[in-house]
């Protein structure tokens, strides 16, 4: 079975759970190079999203993603709100009216979501941001698609690429966001935005492991 509407809802719920569990961890990462609010902001945003679940439980995937995006924009604040809000709004635009997603659809979603984040935040690869986790994850999906890899394996490879991208931010010197004020002192710390991006993509791989 491809990724169904219920699977999309379960992924959003899993995101809420994993962000709540990692709230303090994300905040610690942010305290080292930012302003110590990323964990609390993402948790607040996804708690608001979970409260909206009853309203969207019978809707198409596009409406689900769009609602997630709008909710994050109005509840997260910081840079994370507009960036993850844009991520899900773009995902919603690519899935409008859809009741299920194939691997090819999911690649299109992640590609559009990443483009939206880049447009909003104007970050490039290597700036020590969430783009550094999302870009390799998108590229891994593209490679999997070309190699006719199965959906669960493709999602695993994508999440693994995001993890490597996330860890790759450790030696980087930040050029965007509050961490950029630190200059060279930002090196040696993992970027909190790249970390939350990895957690979200890992949640997708875990939630959709039985999809085909």
């Amino acid at each position, binding site marked *: 079975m491809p990724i169904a509407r219920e699977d999309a809802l379960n992924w959003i719920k899993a995101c809420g759970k994993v962000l709540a569990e990692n709230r303090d961890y994300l905040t610690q990462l942010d305290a080292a190079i930012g302003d110590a609010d990323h964990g609390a902001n993402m948790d607040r945003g996804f708690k608001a999203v979970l409260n909206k679940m009853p309203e969207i439980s019978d809707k198409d995937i596009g409406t689900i993603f769009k609602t997630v995006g709008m909710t994050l924009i109005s509840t997260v604040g910081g840079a994370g*709100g507009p960036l993850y809000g844009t991520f899900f709004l773009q995902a919603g635009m690519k899935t409008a009216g859809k009741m299920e997603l194939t691997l090819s659809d999911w690649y299109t979603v992640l590609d559009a979501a990443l483009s939206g984040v880049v447009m909003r935040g104007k970050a490039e690869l290597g700036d020590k941001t969430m783009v550094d986790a999302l870009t390799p994850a998108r590229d891994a999906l593209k490679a999997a698609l070309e190699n006719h890899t199965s959906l669960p394996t493709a999602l695993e490879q994508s999440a693994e690429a995001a993890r490597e991208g996330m860890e790759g931010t450790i030696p980087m010197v930040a050029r965007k966001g509050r961490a950029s004020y630190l200059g060279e002192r930002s090196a040696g710390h993992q970027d909190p935005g790249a970390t939350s991006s990895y957690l979200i993509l890992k949640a997708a791989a875990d939630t959709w492991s039985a999809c085909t």
Partner: protein
Amino acid sequence: MKKLINQAADVVREELEGIAVAHPDLVKVHYDPSFVYRADAPIKGKVAVISGGGSGHEPMHGGFVGLGMLDAACPGAVFTSPTPDQMLEATKKVDGGAGVLHIVKNYTGDIMNFEMAADLARGDGIEVEAVVIDDDVAVKDSLYTAGRRGVGTTVLAEKICGAAAEQRRSLKEVADLCRKVNGWGRSMGMALTSCTVPHVGKPTFDLPEDEMEIGIGIHGEPGRMRMKVKPADEIVEMLMEPIITDIPYKPGEEVLLFVNSMGGTPQIELYIVYRKAYEIATKKGLKVVRNLIGPYITSLEMAGTSITMLKMDEDLKKLWDAPVKTPGLRWGI
């Protein structure tokens, strides 16, 4: 953590409830989304001036809403930028038909959220101009960073632009004025202690008892350097030097000197700082024609100070002296 709060999650809302009952003659508070706005808004034919940002910098911005200053202020969570729906609803509420100026401090989150709000407001047919304040000389201004942070000059820009809007200047004139103030203002701050964000529960950074951080931001972002605490006069020299050399203030020029408390530093120390800053400015041949001394852009309970210097001309002096009646700043009335 010892704080006069109930629940960490309720801090901002309960603060707003306090403001609402304390100053009903000046401001009203809107909830969900939350913003503070002038009790007599919208004022027909007047440019509305809006600002906003994370909470924890009080009295900025909510304390600066009222006659002669802001028409609305949008508070985010502590040290977190507000969300676009707050700015959008505030913009709609106070627009008097002459357009709305958004004064935005240069932080990535603030910029992105205000940009989204301005796009949405323009979609609703409201004329919006945004001016970014980036006056912190502690940060290297470079294409490879998010640029200088917006700090003390924000308070001065809000006062001066609010006065200009009160004179019924056009949106373009008020926005140009705001850009001029930003171009003429420079700030630098320092911290003696860290601060504790209520929902985090522990200090944002560790600062040993005998050390200080020079060039700190207003959210506990680390600054230029950390060193052993020195006497006040030496600290003031370290803050004034980068300010004075950043824009070539010329001898004979008039300036406003703003000595700010980061929240935990008392007046007695601020006047010691002011005395030395005044002496340094005067020795450089500058004429200190106006001043502001007190806690106006704070960082919760952080001990420390920031110094802002703004070059003045006749127009700026008149606008600075114009009547203002807000919870946090009041004169001429």
